[in-house]
């Protein structure tokens, strides 16, 4: 049987038209002034180790999106949903996270999976499942029955190719967190991630509890730290938590500034 459906573009797609010179120059002028505005949004954590450029809502056909630049690391996250799903009733939303490196980033042998990049590579899977495990704790899924929330992460460029991408994991969580905010999905709290070279912690301050809670912890297998020692482990967690909290306060400032 032939497919008789018509191939339609996105609902809000606008037809391609060729503007006259004057319109183009006007548009360019507008774009550059916009760019200057965005530059103001650069937020700097008080710890001062990473300068982050953030812009939210760049992607228009999704519910929420966030673009983040940290040195040469570029990440873009878009959130689709909550959108209704077909099939039988379920009482909570299902969450899915997909993280992809852009194809030209994956020339290095360790990423290649040799079958035409149809499936995610091991590292992409690991990053996706970490981000998933953080957000499944945070998003109030029971508010959205019979629906799905999909988080798509695109890594456009990576600064350093450390084997376990601890730094990148940290940025992914922060970027996804802001795009969830942009999508106005109900969460228990905004989460931020903090890292030290070997481990990563994401934490959120629960309003009902006095202490910070950890929603995701990952200590990579190439760490040299003696995590057998409880003191070392807890000090590592403390340090990550502190970083996450610092970032949290600067993100809060940024969000407040945005509302104003």
């Amino acid at each position, binding site marked *: 049987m032939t497919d008789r459906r018509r191939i339609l573009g996105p609902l809000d797609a606008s037809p391609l038209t060729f503007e006259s010179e004057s319109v183009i120059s006007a548009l360019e002028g507008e774009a550059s002034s916009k760019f200057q505005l965005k530059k103001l949004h650069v937020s700097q954590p008080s710890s001062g180790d990473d300068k982050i450029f953030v812009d939210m809502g760049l992607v228009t056909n999704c519910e929420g999106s966030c673009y983040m630049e940290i040195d040469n690391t570029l990440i873009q996250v878009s959130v689709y949903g909550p959108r209704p799903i077909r099939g039988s009733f379920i009482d909570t939303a299902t969450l899915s996270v997909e993280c992809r490196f852009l194809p030209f980033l994956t020339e290095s042998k360790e990423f290649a999976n040799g079958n035409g990049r149809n499936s995610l590579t091991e590292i992409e899977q690991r990053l996706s499942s*970490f981000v998933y495990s953080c957000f499944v704790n945070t998003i109030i899924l029971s508010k959205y029955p019979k629906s799905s929330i999909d988080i798509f992460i695109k890594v456009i460029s990576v600064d350093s190719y450390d084997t376990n991408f601890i730094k990148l994991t940290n940025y992914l969580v922060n970027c996804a967190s802001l795009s969830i905010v942009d999508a106005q999905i109900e969460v228990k709290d905004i989460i931020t991630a903090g890292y030290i070279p070997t481990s990563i912690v994401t934490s959120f301050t629960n309003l009902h509890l006095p202490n*910070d809670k*950890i929603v995701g912890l990952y200590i990579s*297998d190439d760490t040299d730290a003696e995590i*057998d020692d*409880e003191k070392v*482990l*807890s000090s590592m*967690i403390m340090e990550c938590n502190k970083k996450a909290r610092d970032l949290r306060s600067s993100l809060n400032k940024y969000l407040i500034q945005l509302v104003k």
Partner: protein
Amino acid sequence: MFKITLSPAERSYLHESLSCLSPIRPDARLNKQFRPLEATCSFLPGSNGSARIRMADGAECLASVKAKVVSLQLNNANSAQHLKNLIEVDLDINGIRDDSNLSSTIASSLKGSLVKHIPLEKLRLTHRYAFKLFIDIVVLSHSSVYPLTLLSLATYMALKSTKLPLLTSTVNDRDIEEQPMFSDDWESSLALFGDSSLSPPLLFVVAVVKDNIFIDPSPEEESVSENGICLTYANGKIISPLQTISLSPKDNTGINSAQILKAHALVKEIGPLVVKSLDEIVSDDSIKTIF
């Protein structure tokens, strides 16, 4: 894998009883007690080491270790990287696609921990040749969301029972290339972990409910747990990787560092006991039940 669907009342009852000060598990186990399991070792004649583990609920896992002689293209700069490539882990979980997130995350965390704890130098035969280990793991059936504990117990036993044939030809083939020759007497074979100070890592998944930590959670317990932690234990120590995992998509709340430390202490306590009972099976070669 079958999905546990509990009614809200059942969930609440189970959650309450697990979060008591002295928790009550549905099968009356202690929080540090495994479900009974049956284990066999070295039962596959065609592989160098093998193990099979069966849980009381029908979950079953087979692990096999095969060694193959490969030639090393050595240039000293990346010899360490080459040695890392001497271990290949292949995982097949019944009912789950090979390229699914779960399967590849489990395989990568297993491989990551194995590479550091297998005596790679023992795999090295001569200057030009080495053994490459192919670790194949098949989970025939499982009830848990995250069957990592089962997998890692089977892998541990398979590796512990791995025997490599004794090399009879010369070790020094730096100048003249020579195919390695082996003794055909299995009595004189060498155990991979024979006199090594290393031991294969064990990965434990624990479920967290309020302030209580449960080892070897049953599917019902997993579905009401607030969080899961995966810890690695080797040579009497907790080692990395250590990570949180979500065992159920409902009622997750996150954890605090006290709970992580509690899980840390629990695995440190039961680790030696598990190692001891697994080692007994490996040395005895007959079916046994461990608790």
